[in-house]
């Protein structure tokens, strides 16, 4: 399960070496890029964990994009009208749980096609949030916490210890999901119902209830991802997810349906975003920013084509449970 694999280790080593060299070459810029990379990775990672939880329990969730958007929308306006960011965030989470519940109901109870259910969520969310969008409102910011002393460490300080609370929460959640999935009773049952639900059913595990719980839990994670977008943008914009919910699916696949795999993949995508932002900001190269803006999407297509072949999805993903 968690045996050490040489390839990721070598990759991590090489990245570290590259980071040190870059840091020696231009400390400030490198710090800006990696810090940005971690922030960019946050929503992708959370979205991927949403997809992972659902699919590991046998429900394909392609409605991550829409769930993120709904959560960001609710979070923004509730925070804006109440004037309290915590209430806004709770509102966003509640909204994403409702979206999760909808997906669970259509795919687990009604046994409808899960791709269609996810598509409905995406289309609905885009239309709904655009229609009810009100211009010119502001909301209180999501708190930012710089951890004293640690934040002043070179390189790792800005990378890990000077962020908004939702970025920390992403770091915490990925570790939690990993431990839960592989060490707990819930995790074992979750992995079982995504692979062979009747095997779980015939030993007394309630497949339906567990799928409901996990799809709603996944919705909540996508909700945190949506709020994370708010944290960075400080306000809601139409279609602000901008395909991140789909990139999250690529991140999930690239990470081979494993939490830490998803984290590695999210950081890779995040790094691209960080580099893009920095180049744009510096106007260092004479390359149109749109070109860099394109790279994550291009990479998504490549990842989906390549990793899709290699990653083995949970065997029962996409199939409603009909009983033993």
């Amino acid at each position, binding site marked *: 399960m968690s045996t050490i694999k040489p390839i990721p280790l070598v990759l991590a080593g090489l990245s570290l070496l590259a980071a040190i060299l870059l840091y020696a070459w231009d400390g400030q810029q490198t710090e800006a890029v990696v810090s940005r990379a971690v922030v960019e990775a946050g929503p992708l990672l959370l979205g991927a964990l949403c997809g992972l939880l659902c699919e590991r329990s046998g429900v394909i969730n392609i409605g991550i994009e829409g769930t993120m958007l709904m959560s960001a929308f609710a979070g923004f306006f509730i925070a804006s009208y109440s004037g309290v960011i915590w209430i806004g965030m709770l509102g966003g989470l509640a909204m994403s749980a409702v979206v999760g519940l909808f997906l669970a109901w259509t795919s687990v109870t009604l046994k409808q096609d899960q791709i269609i259910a996810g598509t409905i969520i995406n289309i609905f969310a885009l239309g709904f949030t655009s229609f009810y969008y009100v211009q010119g409102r502001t909301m209180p910011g999501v708190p930012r916490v710089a951890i004293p002393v640690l934040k002043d460490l070179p390189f790792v300080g800005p990378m890990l210890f000077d962020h908004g609370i939702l970025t920390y929460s992403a770091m915490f959640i990925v570790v939690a999901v990993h431990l839960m999935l592989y*060490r707990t*009773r*819930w995790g*074992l049952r979750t*992995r*079982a119902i995504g692979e062979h639900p009747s095997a779980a059913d015939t*030993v007394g595990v*309630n497949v339906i209830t567990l799928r409901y719980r996990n799809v709603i839990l996944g919705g909540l994670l996508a909700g945190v991802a949506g709020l994370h977008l708010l944290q960075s943008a400080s306000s809601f914009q139409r279609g602000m997810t901008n395909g991140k919910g789909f990139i999250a699916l690529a991140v999930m696949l690239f990470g081979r349906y494993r939490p830490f795999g998803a984290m590695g993949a999210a950081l890779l995508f995040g790094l691209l975003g960080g580099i893009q932002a920095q180049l744009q900001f510096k106007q260092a190269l004479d390359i149109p920013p749109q070109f860099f803006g394109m790279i994550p999407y291009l990479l998504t297509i490549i990842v989906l084509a390549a990793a899709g072949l290699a990653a083995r999805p949970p065997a029962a993903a996409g199939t409603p449970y009909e009983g033993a």
Partner: protein
Amino acid sequence: MSRLLEMKGLTKRFGPVLACDNVDLKLDAGEIVGLLGENGAGKSTLVKMLFGIYEPDAGEIYFDGQLADIEGPGDAIAQGIGMVHQHFQLVPPLTVAENIMLGAEVVPEGGPGSVVGVMNMAAAEERVLELSKRFGLKVDPSAVVEDLPVGVQQRVEILKALNRGARLLILDEPTAVLTPKETDELLKVMRSLADTGVGIIFITHKLREVLAVTDRVTVLRNGKYIGSAETAESTQQSLAEMMVGRSVVLRVEKGTAHPGSSVLEVRDLRVRDDRGSAAVQGMSFDVREGEILGIAGVEGNGQRELVEAITGIRHSESGAILFGGIDMTNATPREVSEWGVAHIPENREKDGLVDNYSVADNMVLNTYFKEPFASRGIRVVDAIRKWASKLIEKFDVRPRTITSPVKSLSGGNKQKVIVARELSAENKLIVASQPTRGVDVGSIEFIHNQLVHQRDKGRAVLLVSAELDEILSLSDRVAVVYEGRVVAELDGATATREEIGLLMAGGSASEAAVS
């Protein structure tokens, strides 16, 4: 011994099908009862009601003398009923210990871990080892299930039930996928379990096993309780007749073969399996008109890949496959079928049928695009229906309906649909892979006679079977395969069970001759 179980008047209906009709079954502690019946007789349905998977429409279950209320498998397990299912209920990517513990995880009390349910896998593996020792079922707790041979997977299934403290064990066709040796081991384990007081309900189509291990048998036919008998007073013949309701010829009647020219020639064939390792490692043999060549061997010695290469489903690395002298190596399945090869595949659900299609549509899977079933690209539904109705009559597919989806049929009747389709077309070569797996005695007799009949009509038959009796009673010649090679070719008339058994296990031909 005390009465463990009494089922009274159990009834279950699925739409128009009365799967169980007022069925009674009794079982004492420490007793092994064989539950027999044709395909679709209602055996699985009956035990699934006992295990809480189906809710009975009527009837009562007394367990330990008490009226039992079984709402679901969880209830059944809690009361001490364990079941090994006809289709394995194991999660392939999980380990043996994880599979055995699923639903009964070891979660230490107290501490922060117990709140979120942190498991103690070390203790779990310990427990599996202990169980495995106690019952003599050897397994490696940390092995991943999908890497294990089916025989070992079967042991894991049994341990799963025993781990939950089963006092009543239901085994639904546990031997259908086992090798002869694995079967013998399983029967021994069953006997020793019964000696410790466990009551066992054993469903099988193999009468040899019934006679070897059971104390008593109960027979169902068409959902009805037909009767019970003491095993000691039964013979294969008497049991078969009770099941089918008429006399059954257990021995295949066949005259001598009159082989003609070669229909299939396989030359130094090499094929890889799904994981990319060499499965068929240089096989050569011929099958001639009017003869049955039996390929004997323990499963997993390249038979599956061989059949898939011949029928065009799998790519051949090197070597040649010739049909009537024409090189058809790596031809497409359509080309192979159009040339005149009928295929009864090993995995009927996956390769032989479209589960959601009706029986009628499944009857024309290989001919739907041809006259008279299609005219200018449009299906002629009338012609398909007429043809299908004729076939289900001739091949005795039950229930007699051509419109229901094939997935609602019992295993044996699904197999009859394939046999009907494949043997009714004009063919030159018939490739039959495990053609009677999970099929009842009456249907086995029927399928065997059909294969002999095809041979007598001058067709070539390639029979692949892990069932020694089947190989011996049908084959004119026997090729024994071991590790992807043909290790011996024997004359079907003189080959013995012992000789083939030894060769299958990797013994040399000279050893086999001595024994």
